[in-house]
């Protein structure tokens, strides 16, 4: 059982990195919109797992994307940040009951899932573009890029989540 979970996580890791670097990094919609879809890894990651390994795994996820897209370690920094903040965000979105054994992401409402993903994406993108641009004189540009790219990532992310949701009717 534990093996099948780890295998699934590993497979998701590889597929999301490939999807990010081979498809979404080349999208360049309107010239600069490249959705960072690999964040879905953090959305799908099991809730009750060792936090240390989760942080390390997210760091390597970001680093892999960084190496492929020549962005130094910006993705790694942003991904580690949301990995660290994930429990806080979950408590905010789902209330305390997310800590119970019976809690499943699929059982929560669409609005909760959406808010959860949106918060992950916005924080990630804010850190990402702040580090990328790194100057206060361009703070408007940082906000603008964060908002626009966040929206595109959010739309694609919701599509992927709906597409691969394992809910059995």
């Amino acid at each position, binding site marked *: 059982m534990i093996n099948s979970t780890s295998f699934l996580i590993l497979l998701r890791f590889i597929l999301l990195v490939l999807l990010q670097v081979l498809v979404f990094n080349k999208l360049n919609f309107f010239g600069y919109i490249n959705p960072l879809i690999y964040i879905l890894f953090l959305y799908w990651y099991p809730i009750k797992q060792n936090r240390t390994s989760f942080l390390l795994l997210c760091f390597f996820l970001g680093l892999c994307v960084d190496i492929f897209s020549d962005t130094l*370690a910006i993705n790694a920094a942003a991904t580690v940040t949301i990995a660290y903040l994930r429990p806080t965000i979950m408590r905010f979105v789902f209330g305390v009951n997310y800590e119970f054994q019976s809690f499943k992401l699929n059982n929560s409402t669409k609005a909760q899932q959406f808010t959860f993903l949106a918060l992950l994406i916005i924080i990630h993108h804010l850190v990402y573009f702040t580090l990328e641009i790194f100057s206060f004189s361009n703070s408007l540009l940082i906000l603008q890029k964060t908002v626009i790219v966040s929206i595109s990532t959010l739309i694609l992310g919701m599509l992927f989540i709906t597409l691969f949701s394992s809910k059995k009717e």
Partner: protein
Amino acid sequence: MQQIINFLIRYKIFLLYLFLLLISCIFTFQSHSYHQSKFLNSSNYITGSLYTFSDNITSYFELREENNKLVEENKRLRSKLFNNVVLSPALIDSTSVKYEVTRGRVINNSYADQRNYITINKGENDSIFQDMGVITDKGILGIVENTSDNFSTVQSILSDKSNINAKIKNSNHFGSLVWENTRDYNVVQLIDIPRLVPLTIGDTIVTGAMSSIFPENIPIGTIKRFDLDNSKSFYFIDVELFNDMTNIDNIYIIRNLNRKEILELEAETEAND
């Protein structure tokens, strides 16, 4: 002591987070000076192979267009050749060769970031090393940044770290080519041209002679708009690139055979100061 250990255990997640964030920040900022990080770049074996694989598939869709570009370039070179007096091969001896040109292909391209890098399929095995110039048939593209055995990454002119010597064609007024408006990937900026220089919209900008990387007179683009900068004594010129940075495939890498000599001489002169 007990308390310190307790503290460490209680906050171990937070400390791990700080540690990882610190590592990524170090990776990010150590390279802000000039060159990209030595480790985190896409010129290594794994990423290079993956990009080659994906390029092998996608390049088929652009074959016809690429063909047209190459034929167009051939045509231009031929017309140059026919209109020039051809030197006999005996007159071209190897000591007069200043630049060596290698051909290569782009296997990964980006233009939407603040600092864009291009990965090409030539590396140290083809004698490609750091700080060689990269051009296309239409104009300038960037400078080689990191190399591995079979691949290199090129710092595109679309990078806020890029700074290339450029001048107005048929004059010797030179300035620096930078990318300040980092949203528009077709326009770069030429700064430090004095205001007394007569300018017209549409003037051609070419590489200057001050660079030990690029030969002189490689086309860059045309003047799209110009204005005085804040100091009111220099122009701030928007240059529209000849290259379509979103669509590049075949490239040429230029090696200046005299570069080492030039750099040594300059270092010596500066040391004597």
